[in-house]
């Protein structure tokens, strides 16, 4: 007997189908980028060396790593917030769902802004926090 536990592909296209594909494709990207990120920063280096000097003087003193880390940021925000969106949709209904999702989308945008600023090296004064 075959059980199908996966979330079925949404029928009829539109945004739901796009989200369904986006979670899976970003997941494949993260399989490589997130596991590589975790491995490099725990096995090649040790957290005890990873000071801000290490980040800006060594790790990000290389355009390739800045670009790859920005790709990782984009994929992980897309994937994780679409995932939380699915969980919220499963357990929360009505107005509470709308409120919670609005807050989550705002948090996703804020994190994307903060992460992008630090990875492209914008001075933090831009946001005037």
């Amino acid at each position, binding site marked *: 007997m*075959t*059980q199908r536990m996966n979330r079925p592909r949404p029928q009829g296209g539109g945004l739901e189908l796009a989200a369904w594909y986006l979670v899976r494709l970003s997941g494949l990207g993260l399989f490589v980028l997130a596991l590589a990120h975790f491995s490099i920063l725990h096995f090649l280096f040790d*957290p005890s060396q990873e000071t801000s000097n290490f980040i800006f003087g060594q790790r990000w003193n290389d355009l390739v790593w800045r670009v790859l880390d920005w790709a990782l*940021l984009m994929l992980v*925000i897309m994937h994780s917030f679409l995932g939380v969106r699915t969980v919220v949709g499963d357990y929360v209904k009505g107005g509470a769902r709308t409120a919670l999702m609005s807050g989550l989308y705002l*948090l996703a945008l804020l994190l994307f802004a903060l992460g992008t600023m630090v990875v492209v*090296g914008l001075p933090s004064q831009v946001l005037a926090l």
Partner: protein
Amino acid sequence: MLLRYRGREGMLAWAFHRISGLAIWLFVVIHIIDIYLAGDDPKAYDTILQVYASAPGRIGEVLLGAALLYHALNGLRIVIMDFWPRMTHYHRQMWWASWVIFVGLGLPAAFIILKPIFVPG
């Protein structure tokens, strides 16, 4: 409850996927903020970094790594079944295979992360 539910492996795989995903999401929120601080307030970041390098921090990183590795392997299993439906017949075998890979890669990884607790410097 989880072990008695009739969904068996598929149900457990789903529950673990959801729990590990939520845990990773929470870490990602914290981690983007701490790396933002590395640019904005390097001293504050270097202080936070000491938590990551401490013994409790390392245990947390082993748990994070375990969540990440499980979520990655089981996620690959889901993607394989979604894009290649005939593989759904082997979903149980793939679940057990993912645990073999999980233990095979996870044990040495945990050893490397925890080693500095016991062997300083």
